[in-house]
């Protein structure tokens, strides 16, 4: 008992000292993630420091399965309530969809005609101006969506094993959902468009006006860096511009909402329904000339190393082909 008491007295003094020190350490960490560019995740920056497998996703890889199981009932409830709501206005929805379908069949006909025309021009000019949007997609399930007060992200159940890489665009059935910021073997983290650190280059297909869509941690991101003469109108459809060279151009994002003289919000098309399955678009980002040449140097060095080490046994070296010069 005396030993416990002595330990207790010691603990009474040590506890506040250790506690205080730990608070200071944690506070320093907090200061390091303060504002500025520290936490800002533009798709370009994400892709720039993209590693095939982020080591920080190791824990996420391990918790992904229990988390997926735990979220199942919640996703079920979410879906059930959503479907119940949809059922209540099924007739109005049906009429609206029929009207939309007749509009779209006309649009589809025009799009097919235009595609044929473009293909013909491409053949004539020997140029390939095909769509940026990749045809191949990776399906993934949103295991947990963190719509917290400080960050908005989601965890997917696909990682490097399915070909997911940092910077890849993630789409719901309707529109852009976010982009990949960390990848593990079996999991990946998506930074949602609403997150305060999200920066996406967008444009209006109508006027081709450009802007940067910045997350605000609320359901409505805002448009910043808008040129003075840019032609933005309330209700303009917003798509990705692909200007950062990482996301493909033309992915639907939402609709612009004028909120004041110089304030422009974005009503995201991916919001409003439960997100369960998503598509990851494996778009290969355009590399800067520096990165490109660096990769070329590495490839050259590898080839040189192989040559220095000699030819592996069993491999026939082709005889030197004499040139015209001798």
């Amino acid at each position: 008992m005396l030993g416990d008491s002595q330990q207790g007295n010691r603990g009474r003094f040590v506890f506040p000292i250790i506690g205080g020190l730990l608070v200071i350490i944690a506070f320093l960490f907090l200061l390091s993630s303060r504002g500025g560019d520290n936490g800002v995740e533009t798709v370009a920056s994400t892709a720039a420091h993209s590693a095939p497998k982020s080591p920080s996703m190791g824990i996420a890889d391990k918790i992904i399965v229990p988390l997926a199981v735990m979220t199942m009932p919640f996703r079920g409830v979410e879906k059930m309530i959503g479907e119940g709501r949809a059922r209540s206005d099924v007739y109005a929805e049906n009429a609206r969809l029929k009207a939309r379908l007749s509009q779209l069949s006309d649009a589809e006909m025009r799009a097919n005609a235009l595609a044929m025309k473009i293909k013909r021009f491409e053949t004539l000019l020997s140029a390939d101006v095909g769509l940026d949007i990749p045809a191949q997609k990776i399906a993934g399930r949103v295991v947990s969506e963190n719509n917290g007060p400080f960050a908005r992200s989601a965890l997917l159940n696909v990682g490097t094993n399915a070909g997911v890489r940092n910077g890849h665009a993630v789409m719901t059935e309707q529109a852009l959902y976010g982009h990949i910021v960390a990848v593990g073997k079996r999991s990946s983290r998506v930074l949602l468009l609403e997150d305060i650190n999200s920066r996406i280059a967008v444009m209006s297909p109508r006027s081709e006006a450009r802007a940067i869509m910045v997350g605000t941690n609320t359901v409505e991101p805002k448009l910043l860096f808008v040129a003075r003469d840019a032609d933005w109108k309330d209700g303009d459809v917003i798509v990705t511009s692909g200007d950062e060279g990482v996301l493909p151009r033309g992915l639907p994002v939402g609709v612009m909402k004028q909120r004041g003289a110089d304030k422009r919000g974005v009503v995201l098309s991916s919001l409003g329904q439960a997100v369960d399955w998503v598509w990851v678009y494996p778009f290969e980002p355009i590399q800067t000339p520096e990165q490109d040449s660096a990769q070329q140097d590495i490839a050259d060095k590898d080839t040189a190393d192989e040559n220095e080490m000699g030819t592996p046994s069993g491999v026939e070296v082709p005889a030197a082909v004499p040139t015209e010069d001798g």
Partner: protein
Amino acid sequence: MAGSYDYTPAPRARRYAIIATVVTAVLCVISQIGMTFDGLEFGFLMLPTLAIYLWPTGANPILSVLGIFLLGFFQDYLSYGPTGLWPVTWLVLFLIYRPDLRDTSQFLLWQWVGAAIVLACVWAFQIALAKFVLASSVNVKSLTLSVLIMLVVFPVFYLIREYSARLFGNRNDFYYESPAR
């Protein structure tokens, strides 16, 4: 006031701290679950805060404070929030609302009021941190909603905790052991 340090045998105190840390780690994972209805986001982000509030008073304080420090970073990692936010919040809460000064009343309503006060303080503290330290905007609606949800689920959480404490040992094991008892 004599602290719990004087009366809880060291091996048992260490065990309480480890159990509480492991349980809170599991709660951190559960707290990542969220649902969205009509644009309103319902989440359990504050669930581990309740565990800090009901931290065993007989737990070894040094181990507890180290465990809470690590748990905070774990929560930051899982929620992809600013690094340091949760450790600062939980450590400040733990140091101010010291285990040896806690009320060990079993009366649910009293504990509920206590939880409401603590959650309100955490709410204000996090908004202040976001505004003055992080210089970033915080979704107050989402934060308020997670506090309200925790107040609603608190009785269930409290009863589960009480029941587990009884199931896995003496009920008093998870509380301050006064020689008067």
